[in-house]
């Protein structure tokens, strides 16, 4: 079974007061995050941590080698769910906002390196726009044996009609969907303009000279532990391609 961690931020009053951002609060953060947490725990998976609001810190995902402590948190669980405001840079780096500067207000993905200790397999970020579809390869460095990053290439709506997305993702995972399908279907209500995307790395056999063997990819093969197969870890030296799947409407 899987160990998972959750970080969710609803209030951004400290970031606003500090002049770091004008971002508003999120309204149904904890409906989604609690729903995800509840769906996994009721299926027997273990919650390693659940940090909310100012207890969620950017150092939790920042690599140890870059001054963070990911080996204690994000890189210490199989699956990590985070909900906050997000964005991406022109070079493809993901960006996320926190409501406390511990030690910085924002995380940038060039300082993530996940899976080094063979723990982190999947990251799910219910945040706007953390994947730049024009520069997805800017995320490559985060895959230090991480299997899949689940994010958004545009807006992700917060409100009364998207409150069940977390529980939907959790139920999909424990019903046996692949990680990728669980994310795409779970965060889509097929009404509001959500923009799910899932990104993974593949080896040279998967790239296959550009004629991609999608059947070999983690997007096609990975399930939550205990609910289906999981593909192998790929160390950076084995990675030949970056693959992504997105939904557009």
């Amino acid at each position, binding site marked *: 079974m899987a160990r998972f961690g959750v970080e969710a931020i609803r209030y951004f009053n400290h970031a606003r007061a500090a002049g770091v951002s*004008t971002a508003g609060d999120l*309204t149904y953060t904890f409906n989604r995050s609690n729903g995800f947490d509840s769906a996994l725990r009721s299926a027997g998976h273990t919650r390693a941590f659940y940090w909310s609001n100012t207890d969620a810190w950017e150092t939790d995902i920042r690599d140890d080698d870059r001054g963070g402590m990911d080996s204690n948190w994000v890189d210490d669980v199989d699956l990590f769910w985070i909900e906050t405001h997000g964005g991406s840079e022109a070079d493809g780096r993901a960006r996320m906002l926190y409501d406390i500067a511990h030690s910085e207000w924002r995380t940038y993905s060039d300082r993530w390196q996940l899976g080094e200790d063979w723990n982190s397999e999947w990251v799910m970020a219910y945040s706007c726009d953390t994947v730049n579809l024009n520069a997805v390869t800017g995320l490559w460095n985060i895959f230090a044996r991480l299997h899949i990053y689940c994010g958004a290439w545009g807006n992700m709506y917060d409100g009364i009609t998207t409150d069940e997305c977390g529980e939907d993702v959790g139920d999909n995972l424990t019903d046996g969907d692949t990680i990728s399908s669980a994310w795409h279907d779970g965060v889509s209500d097929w009404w509001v303009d959500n923009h799910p995307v899932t990104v993974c790395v593949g080896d040279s056999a998967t790239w296959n000279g550009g004629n991609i063997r999608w059947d070999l990819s983690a997007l096609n093969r990975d399930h939550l532990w205990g609910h289906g197969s999981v593909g192998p870890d790929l160390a950076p030296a084995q990675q030949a391609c970056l693959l992504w799947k997105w939904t557009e409407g």
Partner: protein
Amino acid sequence: MNQQFLIDTLMQSGSQAPVRADIVALTPLTRDDARAGMNRFLTALHEADICRHDRANLADRGERSVVHLPDGARAVVLHATRPLQYVSGLAPFQAPYERLEESAVLVRQLEQAAQRLDLNAWVGERGSLAFERLWQTKARGSDREQKLSNPLLLRATCAWRHAVGGIPVLGAASVALHLAGDGTVDALSLQIRQSDVEVLDTAPVIAEELAARQLAERLASVLGKSKDRLPGDAIQSATLRFGYLDLGKRKAQRVLAPTYVAQIELQHRLERQAYVLAVAATERPYLELPLFGVEAPAVRSRGLHPECRDGAS
């Protein structure tokens, strides 16, 4: 934020609200009703040659029942509101489209599949179903030299909107049908509120401008106080719709009541934001439409010792 700008933008979208609207009772559902709905759903899928259910295996999972079907397929029903979902056993990259297709071609294929399923049989008295939107799921890749593969179309999804007495039931798509490239139905979800169309009341609908003002106030309270003022051009888009609101799959709901729903996108500095906000469209509220959801679970604060596992369950 310039509230008047937001109000004007919302009103420009034209919600087409009527002067008066019915408050419609929803049928209370039991677990047996949910299972009866599941049986009907499975029969419909069987008759449309989408799946067999002669070896269906039902599992009770608390608020849901899951039926495991041959070839890795499953069907799920939630007991509270009887939404139904079918998921085929296709792997995500199995049976992709051979090429990218024009939207009109995909919509035509999906509408033909919908006809085969006789989706209109689910809409109830005074109900109707209208096409709303096409979605496409695609994939591509890049090697280390930034050589990009051609995009691959994996699935096409159509969403339909249920209406009762001509008023749309807003929220998650009422029907979402997903097709693979070989025409296989990869997934189908029905989220249609069951009603005997008992009209409990008929109420005057508040003016669009009043609703837009209330929604702008709701947004202002979400945005809170900021050191920097949010400029008017932070609003990227704002649309207003009138309809009944479906409160979600897991919430039993007594009535369909008129509601205004706004979708608002903002961008300022480094953050993009997208909100769905709702207010009652009648003076007397028939549904609770809280601006904020639940709070975080009760775990101990992290304090000054980040290495300890205070947030563990």
